[in-house]
Every structure is written in structure tokens, then in C-alpha cells.
């Protein structure tokens, strides 16, 4: 539920800002890539998951990678400078903000620093996810 809600929130927010920014052409590609598709980094961890757990279902297994942490600004900002567009940085930031609402553990600066933001015990995932979807959905309805 949480993951589904999360990806829907990413899609909606990305769509909203594409519309608000009146983006066209390659900028839509950058927006989709850094707003939504960057979530596919979880696939990188599939072999590790299978190695550790086989086909068991493990709840709350950490699927996050550093590609969705602030440390990724180190490569996204230069990429944006090269491409002469602010779109990757902006959409990555929106993705990051939505992710950081969630309660799972984060390591913002790994592998440069081992600092961790621990998993919160109070679970507001569903609340935050649903709220985001509702709010963004309303804005979209208003705009469309």
C-alpha cells in the first residue's frame, strides 16, 4: 500500500510540475527520469535481496540506494550543468522531498558519511502518502 501510494505521489507531483512549468521535449524526459523513473534503482538490489532472503517475503527490507539520497546531487548537478537545464535538479528535489516524508531509514551522505536518519517508530507512511496524493490530486483536478 505504502509503496504504491508513494509511486503514485511521485507520478502526480511530476505531472503537476511538468504542467506548471509548461515543459516540452527533452525536459519531459528529464522530469520523468528524475521525478519518477529514478525509483527503478530498487531493481539494482534484486540480486542482493534474493541472495539474502531467497523467495521469502521480507517486510521493510531496505530497497533504497544512494541514487535517491542527497549524495546524488554530486552527479545530478554536473549533469544538469552539462545539459544546460535546471529540470533534473528540480525534479530530483521533489522526489527527495516526498521520500523524506516517509518513515524508512535514510543515509543521506553514504558512502562519504555513515550518518543515518533512523527509521521512525511512529508510522506516518500511509498518512503522508495519502495526504500527498489527495492534495496533489486536488490541485491537478483544479488545473485540468
Amino acid at each position, binding site marked *: 500500500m505504502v509503496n504504491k501510494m508513494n509511486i503514485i505521489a511521485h507520478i502526480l507531483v511530476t505531472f503537476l510540475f511538468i504542467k506548471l512549468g509548461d515543459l516540452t521535449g527533452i525536459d519531459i524526459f528529464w522530469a520523468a527520469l528524475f521525478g519518477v523513473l529514478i525509483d527503478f*534503482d530498487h531493481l539494482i538490489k534484486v540480486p542482493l535481496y534474493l541472495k539474502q532472503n531467497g523467495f521469502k*517475503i*521480507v517486510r521493510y527490507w531496505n530497497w533504497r*540506494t544512494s541514487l535517491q539520497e542527497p549524495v546524488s546531487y554530486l552527479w545530478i548537478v554536473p549533469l544538469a550543468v*552539462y545539459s544546460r537545464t535546471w529540470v533534473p535538479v528540480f525534479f530530483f528535489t521533489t522526489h527527495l522531498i516526498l521520500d523524506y516524508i516517509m518513515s524508512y531509514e535514510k543515509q543521506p551522505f553514504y*558512502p562519504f558519511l555513515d550518518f543515518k536518519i533512523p527509521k521512525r*517508530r511512529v508510522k506516518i507512511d500511509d498518512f503522508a502518502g495519502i495526504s500527498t496524493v489527495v492534495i496533489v490530486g486536488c490541485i491537478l483536478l483544479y488545473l485540468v
Partner: protein
Amino acid sequence: MYIVVPGVKKTYDGVMRPISDLFHLKLKMLPNHVSVLGFLIGLVSVGLIFLTHWQLGLIMMGISLFLDGVDGNIARVYGLESKTGEQLEIIFDRSLEVLMFVALAYNFGVDYKVVFLAIYSILLMTSLRDKAKFDPGLKRVSLILILVMSYEIIISLVFFAHIGAFILQLCILDNKNQNLNVETSEEGPVKDGINMNYNLQDYLRGK
């Protein structure tokens, strides 16, 4: 350079052995001496490129690169590997790359912004090189392509290759980190008093 494919390093060392013997046994040179010699030849090549003799400069750079391979080979074959030697090699390599890229940009009138981005990407990749044990090694070698394509394209390729390498390093280290966390955790799959593992049958039973 870290050679990723297993067995390649052994073959490479075997092929380079006669040359290493020549430098170490006949000329009595230590790996660091060869590194310094390679660096000096590299500086000459940079000077030649600045003076617009870029073809000659690239030939000298080839010799410098060759010596860059010899020093590591001597160190491995004769058990002379040291942390100082490794650091010295990194400093020499990165310095030559910076100078070489700037010299070629000056020579070919390429946008310096792209050159600085390429240099930045190489330094970024170098920052995780030892931790991730991965380095694509496409820096000065890629300049050979100047014979068939424009410098601007080559420098862009260097930028993308090293940004890609940095992303790969992040993934490698993420996997290592998570593997380590599980192996060292006494709790195993239990966190916060909750058993995190469910096999499919238990899950379907609602346990």
C-alpha cells in the same frame, strides 16, 4: 588502475614481465622511480600540446601511459607495493589528466566548461575508487580517439563515463553496506522486536 575482469591482471603481468625485468633488474629502478619518469614525460607531452605540437605530444603521452603500467607491474611482481607508491601514482595521474585536458582544450578551442566537468567527474570517481575497487580507466587512454573524432565529443564521453562509473560505485557500495549490515547484525532479520521475515505460506496464513 583496477582491472575488473578476473585473470586479466595475471595475463597483463605476464606480458609486461620482460619490460619490468629490464627496468628493475637491469636499470635498477624502483616502481616510484618509474612513476616519476612517467610523470616527467607526461609533463613534456603537455608542454608539446600547449606549443601546438599535439601529435608529438600524444606520442609522448603514450610513452608516459606505458610507464604508468610498468611501475604497477614492477610493484606487483617484486612485492614492492606500498601505500605511498599508490598515492603517488594517483596524484601523478590526476595532475597529468588535468593538464592534458586543459592543454588539448586550449589547442582545439573547446569550451572549458565541458573540460572542467570532465575533470570534476574524474575526481568524483576517484573519491570512491578505493572503497568500491572500481575504476573504468578511460582517461588519458581515451585521447587516442582524437585521431578519429573531435576532442569535444571525447571529453563529453569522458564526462559521461565517469559520472556513470560514480553511479556504479554508489550501487556497489550500497550492496556491500547492506550485505555487511545483515552479516554483522546479531538480531538477524529481527528489528524493533518485529520478525521481518515471512515465508510465503506464513504470509498467506496471515501470521
